[in-house]
């Protein structure tokens, strides 16, 4: 404030001769309601003010003919050439079209009205609206064509983001019965993330509150500027900057309670005892003639299953233990973000400090994150601007024991956690000596902690010669240093009270990378109504990762945790490694605008990647797009109800080399060892056939789009159709074992073999359903489909099973999606009447009847068919926002439909028990001779090696958030000198509607290690600004 005064004084003295006029006025919306906190600025100067609670402002304008800009979030910015009047009333119109909104398109930005490609944007308001702690969660269900999925509900777990389907064939090759991995950074079909111009994968360390804007480039014409790496879409994240003349201090705090929700239905104590009896009966019945009479007559002996006197007493007294209930907790979530931003005298700055603590609902699971963001830029003179940005995130994630969740649900209700003295029993179930009481893990006997520091820095120099020429050079180093420490103490399920199994691991990673971009912009105003913008870019990217892995076992004590690996005696791993990749690129973009009606964009990028085989490293990725703003045509301009109508068409190429690891074209020697007598010798062999032809995989995409806004922008619709074919898909091609390569399973070589198509439609509809003086109701709806199909594999091959082992249900099959689920089709369960038929196929009554697809009288590999795919057929999201005076209510819903796959959860918790009924399980409708209409086979012997029992749909409809917010009126705030004050209460994930029996249909596909409950959060929030 003092500075401002000083400035005013200086101006006042030095330029007293100039006309200095105080302009006052009021800013209102289209219903003449005053807009508080709207920004008023004298264009091209640092002179700016903010309106008060009544929308009033006073600004000193220096000269006639100055342009004043009026802006307010959610409204179209208005520019007025000051005509000398001293009292202005400025009406702003709501900009649900966002036509003036600035869209970041990579190495530049354009107004949405000038956009030719398919780009979706979210601003800070939307990103932070529901107080989600992770960017992935914040955009989930918000954008058509963007499938965001939680992989694991533990605190701090990353989310998977997939744009317009999967182009990478290899992605399914890791899938197995155990589901998909939750390591997103190794996911080859993840989009390219660009944070403030830097390629940066680990976006879940960012604080959503620090995000100014997220722009998602979906079609190839938009991603083409990122050429080689854009085929899976590009997510551009821009962090906050200061605004000249507006000093703002914000403080944002939340407090939440997290609890398990959508609890799976397990057998109660009585049901469990009955279930054990059924298992025993089935066991005895097996030796009989498979008649119902025989079943009724079998005698059972519970003593093989309830072995200890305590357990028998528990059964007799009906004293049961609800393990899962005892181990569930309420977690606490807190977050704080303090921000300061402002600027004057050509210097703008933004700083923020964030803290998040997020507790799990079991054991020691926990996530903590500190974020520091600092950005400043200074106008050195008329032409030169220097800027620096640093973003720092320190996070610590405790994932706890991967077994705790499973143990807590599996332990039989008939065994006790505590002995008569109230002490924890070490081995609750004598029948299974591996089961250490999970309470020890809940107390931290198993720890798995990741601590990482991410630093993104960025320094730029911008030279604006004049309106015609601008040059920017930007250098952005990033460093990620992370450490994973794991200790499996004595009293864990893994160590089983055996010191030789106690395990300590300590792994470190140091990743350093930099991006150096040079951007030259030329802006030709060829003639009236003809504008040509040219952007030329060079970009270098360097990425080096090194690290070490240590694993030691056999500890006498748990005292060291993972901090003293020398305390153990059995060294299993102690290696270091290094990889490096570089990327060099030249790119150009031409935007040609004819009378704001006909818009052309031509983009090309020429990329070279170190990862590809020498001689095949370079390729060029061109694209072209055209948009016609029909509503600007004279014949439509006068149409009152039509506010915007734009047709877009684009076609282009982009690439992907994520699939290839560095050094992917080399034939390395693999080490093995062998003992000759007692002498250990090192052996070498070549595991894979090197491919000297390895090059880019290239996607070609056609995109058709329509944008429509009608009825005073109250209905706003975007429609996209895309058809993207990826050729030369890089995949590991299986080789015949006769080649002699490999180490285990089929040998492979990586090359450009396959072809994949993704096509789909996306619909985005934003409507203002109601708007009165005090009340408004807005709806934002999105819907998208994606149809994925493998067009070609290699050679004549049209089907590659992931494994011939029946438990692996993945396949690559021409005509089927990449993530097809390939297994036996179930046609009911054999009944006692079907004994003969069942036995002819090698089955028994109570086991699945599989369809003998080829009718050869036997169930073989040939009878496996594609039963579905893991990816959804369609996804949709809807947010309804209701405003009444200062009160706001939002309800967000999202859904994924048409998903199918193997559930690790069902595999762990189904009633199938093998030869011993040890574990508790889901309350499933299983087959007995007395319940032949059951949904699931016999629990004793009904297992089939195809694991069909565990295939399921993961479809769901979820209320993602119900949020209530209250913004205090300005009249009250003024008394405290505040500019805004908002209280909110959000309930995240309150309801899930699904047929999936597990805890969370969204994470259901994933492997067991991250398994935990779906979480519902009650979150209280407060946001204040000065």
């Amino acid at each position, binding site marked *: 404030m003092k500075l401002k005064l000083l400035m005013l004084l200086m101006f006042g003295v030095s330029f007293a001769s100039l006309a200095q006029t105080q302009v006052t006025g009021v800013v209102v919306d289209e219903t003449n309601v005053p807009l508080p906190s709207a920004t008023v600025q004298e264009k091209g100067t640092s002179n700016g003010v903010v309106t008060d609670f009544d929308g009033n402002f006073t600004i000193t304008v220096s000269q006639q003919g100055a342009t004043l800009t009026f802006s307010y979030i959610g409204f179209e910015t208005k520019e007025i050439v000051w005509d000398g009047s001293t009292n202005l009333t400025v009406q702003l119109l709501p900009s649900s079209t966002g036509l003036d909104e600035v869209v970041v398109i990579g190495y530049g930005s354009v107004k949405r009205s000038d956009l030719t490609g398919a780009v979706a944007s979210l601003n800070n308001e939307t990103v932070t609206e529901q107080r989600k702690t992770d960017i992935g969660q914040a955009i989930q269900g918000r954008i058509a064509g963007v499938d965001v999925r939680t992989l694991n509900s533990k605190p701090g777990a990353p989310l998977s983001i997939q744009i317009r389907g999967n182009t990478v064939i290899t992605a399914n090759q890791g899938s197995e019965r155990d589901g998909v991995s939750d390591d997103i950074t190794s996911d080859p079909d993840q989009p390219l993330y660009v944070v403030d111009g830097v390629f940066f994968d680990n976006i879940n360390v960012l604080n959503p509150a620090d995000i100014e804007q997220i722009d998602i480039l979906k079609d190839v014409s938009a991603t083409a500027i990122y050429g080689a790496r854009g085929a899976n879409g590009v997510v551009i994240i821009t962090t906050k900057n200061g605004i000249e003349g507006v000093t703002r201090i914000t403080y944002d705090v939340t407090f939440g309670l997290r609890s398990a929700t959508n609890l799976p239905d397990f057998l109660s104590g009585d049901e469990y005892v009955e279930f054990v009896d059924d298992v025993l009966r089935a066991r005895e019945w097996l030796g009989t003639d498979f008649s119902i009479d025989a079943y009724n007559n079998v005698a059972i*002996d519970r003593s093989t299953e309830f072995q200890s006197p305590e357990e028998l007493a528990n059964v007799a007294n009906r004293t049961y233990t609800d393990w899962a209930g005892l181990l569930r907790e309420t977690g606490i979530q807190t977050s704080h973000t303090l921000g300061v931003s402002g600027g004057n005298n050509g210097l703008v700055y933004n700083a923020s400090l964030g803290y998040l603590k997020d507790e799990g609902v079991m054991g020691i699971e926990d996530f903590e994150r500190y974020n520091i963001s600092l950005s400043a830029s200074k106008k050195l003179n008329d032409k030169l601007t220097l800027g620096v940005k640093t973003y720092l995130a320190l996070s610590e994630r405790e994932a706890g024991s991967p077994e705790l969740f499973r143990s807590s649900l599996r332990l039989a209700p008939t065994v006790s956690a505590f002995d008569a003295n109230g002490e924890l029993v070490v081995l609750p179930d004598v029948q299974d000596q591996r089961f250490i009481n999970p309470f020890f893990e809940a107390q931290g006997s198993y720890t798995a902690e990741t601590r990482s520091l991410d630093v993104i820095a960025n320094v730029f120099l911008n030279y604006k010669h004049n309106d015609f020429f601008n040059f920017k050079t930007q250098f952005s180093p990033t460093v990620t240093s992370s450490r994973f420490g794991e200790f499996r103490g004595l009293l864990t399920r893994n160590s089983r009270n055996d010191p030789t199994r106690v395990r300590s691991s300590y792994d470190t990673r140091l990743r350093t990378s930099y991006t150096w971009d040079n951007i030259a912009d030329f802006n030709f105003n060829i003639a009236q109504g003809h504008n040509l913008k040219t952007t030329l870019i060079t970009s270098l990217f360097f990425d080096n990762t090194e690290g070490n892995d240590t694993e030691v076992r056999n500890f006498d004590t748990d005292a060291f945790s993972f901090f003293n690996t020398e305390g153990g005696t059995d060294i299993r791993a102690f290696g270091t490694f290094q990889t490096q990749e570089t990327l060099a690129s*030249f790119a150009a973009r031409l935007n040609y605008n004819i009378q704001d009606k006909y818009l052309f964009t031509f983009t090309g990028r020429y990329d070279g990647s170190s990862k590809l085989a020498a001689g095949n490293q370079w390729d060029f990725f061109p694209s072209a797009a055209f948009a016609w703003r029909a509503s600007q045509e004279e014949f439509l301009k006068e149409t009152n109800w039509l506010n915007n109508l734009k047709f877009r068409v684009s076609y282009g190429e982009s690439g992907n080399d994520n699939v290839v690891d560095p050094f992917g074209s080399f034939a390395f020697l693999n080490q093995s060892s062998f003992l000759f*007598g007692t002498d250990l010798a090192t*052996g070498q062999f070549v595991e894979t056939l090197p491919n000297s032809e390895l090059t880019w995989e290239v996607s070609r995409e056609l995109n058709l789009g329509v944008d429509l806004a009608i009825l005073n922008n109250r209905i706003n619709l975007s429609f996209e159709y895309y058809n993207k074919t990826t050729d030369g898909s890089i995949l590991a091609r299986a080789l015949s074992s006769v080649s002699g390569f490999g180490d285990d399973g089929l040998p492979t070589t990586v090359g450009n073999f396959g072809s994949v198509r993704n096509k789909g439609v996306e619909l985005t509809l934003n409507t203002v359903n109601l708007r009165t003086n005090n009340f408004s109701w807005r709806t934002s709806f999105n819907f998208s489909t994606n149809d994925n199909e493998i067009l070609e594999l290699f050679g004549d091959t049209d089907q*590659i099973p992931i494994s*011939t082992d029946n438990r692996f249900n993945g396949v690559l099959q021409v005509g089927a999606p990449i993530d097809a689920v390939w297994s036996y089709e179930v046609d009911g369960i054999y009944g006692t009447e079907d004994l003969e038929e069942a036995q002819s196929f*090698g089955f028994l009554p109570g086991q699945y009847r599989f369809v003998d697809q080829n009718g050869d009288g036997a169930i*073989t590999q040939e009878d496996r068919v594609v039963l579905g795919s893991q990816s959804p057929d369609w996804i949709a999201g809807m947010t309804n926002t209701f405003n009444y005076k200062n009160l706001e209510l939002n309800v967000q819903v999202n859904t994924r439909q048409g998903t199918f796959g193997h559930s690790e959860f069902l595999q762990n918790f189904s009633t199938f028990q093998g030869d011993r009924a040890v574990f508790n399980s889901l309350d499933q409708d299983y087959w007995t001779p007395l319940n032949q209409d059951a949904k699931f086979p016999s629990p004793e012997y009904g297992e089939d090696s195809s694991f069909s029992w565990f295939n399921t749909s993961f479809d769901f409809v979820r209320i993602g958030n119900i949020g209530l917010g209250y913004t205090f009126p300005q009249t009250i705030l003024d008394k405290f000198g505040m500019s805004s004050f908002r209280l909110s209460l959000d309930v995240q994930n309150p309801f899930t509607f699904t047929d999936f029996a597990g805890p969370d249909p969204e994470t259901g596909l994933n492997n067991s290690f991250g398994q935990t409950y779906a979480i519902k959060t009650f979150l209280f929030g407060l946001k204040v600004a000065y």
Partner: protein
Amino acid sequence: MKRMRKFKNFGFALIGMIAFSACDDYLEEDPKSDITAENFINEENADQLVVGIYSELRDVYRDYTFKFFGTDIFAARSENFSFNPENDYFNLNENDGFTVWASNYRVIGRANLAINRFLNEIDFSESNISARDLGVAQAQALRALAYFNLVQQYGGVPIELEEQTTIRNDYARATEAEVYLQIIADLEAAIPVLQESPDPGRFSSRAAQHLLSEVYITRGYSSFAESNDFQTAASLAEAAIGSYDIRSQSYAEVFDVGNQINDEVLFAVQWGTEGLAEDVNNNKHSIFMTQVFQYPGISRSGNIYGLSGFGAQPTNFFYSLFADNDSREDPTIHRVLFADEETTFDPDGDGPIPSDLILPGDTVVFFPKNALVAADLEDRLNRYYVYQPDQYEFGVPDNVPGVTYQYSSNILRNNFPIFEKFDDTVFDEIVGGARDTFVFRVAGTHLLAAEAHLGAGNTGQALFHINRVRERATGVADELTTIDIDVILDERARELAGETNRWAVLKRTGKLEERINLYNPQVIDHGAFDSSIHLLRPIPGVEIQLSSGTLLQNPGY
């Protein structure tokens, strides 16, 4: 490429405009933590390529598919009506046996790599020529071993002798006779070069002679046999035996876990107690046993027997083969299992049946060689489980009223004397251990010699060799006076059970079908053996699928 060049110019134009230089050097990869054959292997360390072949043998010999199941002496450890395609041949199909195929071809691939690099890429100086030749000879011998493993199971297989450098899907099968010729050629080239007594674990000239002897015997039975195959085999076997007298060590000593490197062993795939995980991970001890920790008093991780890792058990026929004076039975199987932890056996908690305190060292299960009389049985059943010789197959014997140990309290359904000869001192719960896998042993060479002489019509020499083996076992010299192939097969069962490939031996002697129909309980119950199909194994389906129609499946699969 044309398009690319055009745009390269475009790229250079950009460079000129913006002060910035980039060239292909920037994209050059320099792996620091990995090595390639080109930048690492030289004449000094070339042997590492040979060691690479040996280490793949672990995959070959840790896999028991197609070796023991479906024979006269081993069957599935499960109900007699249960299905197991490898054992009962019911629905045996192309999904079985991938490891057999792939691991042997990996041995061949690594041998081809070594031979090519040794002969064509690595510069050996004059003084190292003998090292080069020795490396090549080992590679040839191991390649022959792998081809022999394959040809016995699959018949003719693709013969590849070059390091593979391009993607191929045109592999085609040679005839069975051609594969034998290739094996013989490799071994004949290797034998003169190999050392007679190299370091333990290295392939010796005597091991190669043993192998070649078996190759000739196997061909000797075939339709493409040559007239002197058995005679050649007999000479090779005798050369391999050399001057070694198997009577210098007892059978028990040969299988003493502390005596794994001993002179009777001609070739073994070795594991140890140190080194990397792969060096201490043999599952040999875990075959032909049951989950013994289910018995009261036997702990899961502390017991001396280990864990069960392979679902097979010996047949009743196998147990019946040992005469009372046969000193091999005791080291071969455990007739008594002992406790290693204190526990109270009290299955019903507290009831009319008394409980039993078990202390470490107490007997837990007893398998008498001859059936016990009722009174003796009843007495013992108050102290431990007893399973009579006719109770080894799946089932729960009838409880004996009033005794402490009720059969119904034992959740194990297959109770039989487990194998002792492969007992290990080191194992963990993923059934890894340090036991070496003996591949060739002089006692086995004697039985080959006996078989070869018998095939050649030389009964006297055949009797000499079999009697040498029997003499060590029973102490009786010149015991047998007549011999036929069944005598040899029974003796092989007693001497070599679990060591050599029983299925292949029964197949070559033409006795497979006859013997499994007599002795294998699941085959007797529902066997589907068809000699027009099952004497050859199915080529893995995925290999057929990966071929462009050139690799043909065996008939019937």
